[in-house]
């Protein structure tokens, strides 16, 4: 990977971090609220089904996390496991796709 792209990866990680800063604060508040007011499938779905705002919020959340997590893991793989280069990058790309797919499946699951 050339230097320019490495820098862009870093920038993507920091920018997604800023988005996640907001998403996570909202999510933490939501968790506290949900735990207190009810955690059964019906109760959760009652709050999220058909709600476009939640759909958009969780959608952005999933995209940001699918970018932020794998890029963060890239440093860990490189520094602690000595795994760097093309094979590691491909593994991380696959991870990002898997996270995004599972994430959107979940977002759709609670919206539809």
């Amino acid at each position, binding site marked *: 990977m050339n230097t320019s792209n490495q820098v862009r990866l870093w920038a993507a990680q*920091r920018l997604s*971090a*800023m988005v*996640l*800063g907001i998403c*996570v*604060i909202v*999510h*933490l508040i939501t*968790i*506290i609220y949900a*735990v*207190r007011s009810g*955690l*059964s*499938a*019906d109760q*959760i*779905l009652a709050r999220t089904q058909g709600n476009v705002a939640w759909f958009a919020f969780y959608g952005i959340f*999933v995209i940001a*996390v699918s970018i932020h*997590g*794998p890029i*963060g*893991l890239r440093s*860990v793989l490189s520094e602690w496991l000595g795994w760097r280069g093309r094979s590691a990058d491909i593994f991380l790309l696959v991870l990002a796709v*898997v*996270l995004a797919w*599972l*994430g959107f*499946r*979940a977002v*759709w*699951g*609670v919206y*539809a």
Partner: protein
Amino acid sequence: MNTAWRARNHPAWWAFLVHRISGILLTLFLPVHFWVLGLALHDSARLDGFLHWTDYPLVKLGEFFLVLMLAAHLTGGLRLLALEFLAWRGWQKNLLALAAGLALFAGLAFAYVV
């Protein structure tokens, strides 16, 4: 290795370790989290089954730990963004993150116990 740890024993290094470990744990947790929620799609009964597990104290402890990891990663991350983009200096920023983390922790602990 003993030698390395003697040099690492300062606040900013521990902040790094917490941030990295919490990040790894969260990345491992996420696919599970997404998969369980995805059960709502076709199998809300199974989702309910999973959600009933949250009544068990051990599971509550695990959840609390996860929430703690999330809060720690968030506050540590905000600290890093400040250091990298706002050009903050000095260890007062460590203190700030610590205070913020503790405040968040206290608030969550209270909310959760209640």
